[in-house]
């Protein structure tokens, strides 16, 4: 069952929720429940961004709720500061703590990251419970309510408005952030860190940004919680609640902002009903809801690990990228004159453990040429490629690009110098539209940061980037699928999307890793035509390819590797006759 897409349904739902409390149909009890749902939604929205989009799973989000809540609790009860003034304080404290914790956390690799969040999640819980000036295990009571003028917002109906305005603003800000340039980079982190880095995304900084943003939403939730509950104690800021928030994000459908609200509603409602129902069923009181709670979590993971929202509402609608005005374009790079030395690989060597993967390899790429790098399986082609693009450091030797020595090469630096690359195993963000994937290539051509995206001040720049992406898609012949999710394309088309993305960088040198693999004959011909066109514009191409017909009819020169060593170099006609090449490819037992 799928409902129709588009913004209408969520808008109607939002309106219905906002109007409902004032119709007199809903008892106080339900309004209070909705307030808790709203507060949890804020945390879950942050987690959707952090986990579902950014790929960093945090079990410790409840601790940031705690920082937000305790900050306002201390400032209002101890220092008598007005609750509205403590809002920025709560946010700043959460931001500072998250910045410090995040700086370490986002650098943790693999499953160490969630384990790290569990560790500090528990540590903060015990910290809250043992600091006397936070009231230790009893917490702090007597927190003043929010006031509008002299009217205190104590009635759940009044507070409802405050909570849900915050939720709506959080949704809008988050959607805006995700739609912008930084948002694309964040969305690329989880599925394809390698691609993000290859187009200049500073992944550590982007991850930290997401981490702090999610924590600040949690801090906001903490502030709201403190003034609704009017007291704080360590209980709700521990690892159990942290896991509950994570469950909300997962249940809703990690990666879906509206799903977070659905998940928060589902879990809050479920817990509430279980708290009422189970004691009645079992006959005495206790935290029995946790039994069902854990079971639900396991069942969701076993049956619908991508959450409920996608099942109900299908894939997300395509974004509406801005269209450019006045025919402005992104600035092009000035290309060197054809025939000048562009890339010089000198005695490049890479050793893994005892294995020499690339053994003192030499070759040049001149501008305006297509160079083929070929060799049998395990010959060291991919390693050479990774040395040039900065994915791996050289063991010895050097690589120069336009006179810059690439000794401390990183993928980001390679992108900034104008090396645009594709990947042997396609690195595409499947749940992002094709044009957004291509626009990721233009990351370094834009400047807008997260704040400009949230406030939607990035539209003019975005329009330029998307115009560029659109132009590159036209060139590879994929304009008609620009707004489809990239995951729905065939492998051959995805290879062309990668070429378009690399062209979006306005590169000086295109590095293509097996671009013809998986392409049909017609597609190969189109790709060959495109590469010749690109060459005629003065770009250079370094091509690793196994389809010999393709590479032989296209390349100006070939470099042949075997066992990490260059065994031949020359024009294609000579390479075909070269005895060492024949031996390397067909083998021989003498």
């Amino acid at each position, binding site marked *: 069952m799928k409902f129709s897409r588009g913004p209408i349904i969520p808008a109607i739902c939002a309106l219905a929720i906002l109007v409902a409390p004032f119709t007199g149909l809903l008892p106080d009890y339900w309004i209070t429940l909705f307030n808790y749902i709203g507060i949890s939604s804020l945390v879950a929205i942050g987690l959707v961004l952090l986990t579902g989009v950014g790929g960093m*799973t945090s*079990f410790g989000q409840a601790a940031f709720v705690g920082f937000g809540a305790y900050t306002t609790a201390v400032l209002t009860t101890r220092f008598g500061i007005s609750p509205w003034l403590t809002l920025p304080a709560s946010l700043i404290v959460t931001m500072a703590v998250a910045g410090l914790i995040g700086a*370490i956390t986002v*650098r*943790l*690799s*693999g*499953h*160490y990251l*969630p*384990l*790290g969040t*569990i*560790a*500090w999640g*528990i*540590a*903060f819980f*015990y*910290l809250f419970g*043992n600091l006397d000036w936070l009231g230790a295990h009893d917490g702090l009571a007597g927190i003043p309510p929010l006031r509008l003028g002299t009217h205190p917002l104590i009635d759940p109906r009044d507070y409802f408005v405050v909570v849900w305005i915050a939720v709506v603003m959080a949704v809008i800000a988050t959607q805006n952030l995700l739609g912008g340039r930084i948002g694309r980079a964040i969305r690329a982190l989880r599925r394809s860190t390698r691609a993000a880095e290859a187009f200049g995304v500073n992944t550590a900084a982007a991850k930290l940004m997401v981490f702090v943003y999610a924590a600040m939403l949690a801090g906001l939730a903490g502030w709201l919680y403190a003034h609704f509950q009017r007291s704080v104690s360590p209980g709700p800021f521990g690892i*159990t609640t942290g*896991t509950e928030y*994570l*469950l909300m994000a*997962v249940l809703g459908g990690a990666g879906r902002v509206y799903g977070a609200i659905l998940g928060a509603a589902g879990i809050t409602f479920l817990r509430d009903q279980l708290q009422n129902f189970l004691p009645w069923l*079992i006959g005495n009181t*206790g*935290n*029995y*809801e*946790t*039994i*069902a*709670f*854990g*079971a*639900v*979590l*396991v069942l969701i*993971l*076993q049956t619908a*690990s991508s959450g409920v929202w996608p099942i109900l509402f299908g894939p997300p609608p395509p974004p509406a990228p801005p269209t450019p005005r006045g025919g402005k374009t992104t600035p092009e790079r000035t290309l060197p004159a054809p025939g000048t030395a562009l890339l010089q690989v000198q005695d490049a060597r890479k050793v893994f453990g005892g294995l020499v993967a690339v053994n003192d390899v030499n070759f040049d790429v001149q501008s305006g040429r297509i160079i083929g790098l070929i060799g049998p399986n395990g010959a060291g082609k991919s390693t050479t490629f990774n040395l040039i693009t900065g994915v791996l450091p050289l063991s010895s030797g050097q690589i120069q690009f336009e006179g810059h020595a690439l000794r401390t090469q990183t993928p980001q630096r390679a992108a900034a110098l104008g090396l645009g690359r594709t990947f042997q195993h396609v690195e595409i963000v499947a749940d992002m539209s094709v044009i957004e994937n291509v626009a990721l290539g233009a990351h370094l051509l834009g400047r807008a940061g997260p704040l400009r995206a949230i406030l939607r001040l990035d539209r003019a720049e975005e329009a330029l980037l998307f115009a560029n992406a659109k132009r590159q898609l036209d060139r590879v012949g994929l304009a008609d699928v620009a707004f489809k999710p990239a995951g729905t394309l065939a492998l051959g088309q995805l290879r062309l999307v990668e070429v378009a993305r690399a062209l979006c960088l306005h590169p000086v040198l295109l590095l293509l890793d097996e671009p013809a693999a998986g392409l049909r004959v017609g597609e190969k011909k189109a790709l060959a035509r495109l590469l010749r066109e690109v060459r005629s514009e003065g770009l250079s191409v370094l091509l690793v390819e196994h389809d010999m017909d393709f590479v032989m009819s296209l390349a100006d020169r070939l470099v042949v590797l075997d066992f990490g060593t260059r065994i031949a170099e020359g024009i294609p006609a000579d390479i075909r006759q070269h005895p060492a090449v024949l031996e390397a490819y067909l083998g021989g037992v003498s």
Partner: protein
Amino acid sequence: MDGTIFLFLLQDGIINGAVYALVAIATVLVFAVTRVILVPQGEFVAFTALTIAALENGNVPATPWLLLALGGLAAASEIVRHVSELSWRRVARIALFDLALPVALLLLTRTLAPMKLGQAVNILLAIALITPMGPMIYRIAFEPIAHSSVLVLLMAAFGVHFSLTGLGLLFFGPEGSGTTPLSSASFSLGDLVISGQSIAVLIVTAVLLVLFALFFGRTLLGKALRACSSNRVGARLVGIPTSAAGQIAFALAALLGAVSGVLIGPLMTVFYDSGFLIGLKAFVAAILGGLVSYPLTVLAALGVGFAEALFSFWASNFKEVLVFTLIIPVLAWRSVYAPHAEETE
């Protein structure tokens, strides 16, 4: 701090550390074989201690009922998953392991409990009741998602932890209890008094660690479990069934948890939810050992026990804060120098 206090703290730390070591070894074993970070490992510890406490009072513990409930769930989940290819052998295995075994243990417990046959019987019965829970939990929660990422498995582990804690409250109630020491003797060594229980803890731990080393070093089954963690594809190619390996790993984990429960029961008052913190501290040790090395894990567990003893002397309110903060720099260090922790998916 004078020498006596130091020695006292050292003793305290080593005793706790020894118990953490057993639990941590189980965590490492389960992770290596199944990639599950077994958050509910501590529940086995707490439930064992509570079971023995009930038996010591001549009461029938709720444990057999819990076992029967888990067996029923395991049977149901396996039947639902294999409904189209249900062979008689499978049905017989389910009936025997998931239903007949718990029922037999239930009858046995009801017969033996009022007889108060003494400590050895209580301990053996408790271990027999807890150990089958391991493979049952694996089949209910983890086997259907065995090929998922470490993260999904970790979240499922949290789910199991929540459910088991809730079940613990339901079956054992909120009251805590302690158990009789394994030995009531005590020795004086200068100013230091060493209890027989401490010695018993050390001996049992040492014997178990040696048995484990022999199992993994000398037997084909032990080597097969190691092979699963060394190279999953390789293990499949030589015909090691990964599901059975997972169940064995969980059974061993439950067994180690049960023994830890026997050891820790006399040292502290155990509540239905005490296992979580014990499990987490062992888990800190397992992380320090990189989730791979058994000797490193044992050392780390002793370190955690000692650090905890020191922290509780200097800043008893903050001992948990300090123990769990300790782990973060280690994780950061491991991320930089052991990047193979990255999933290869």
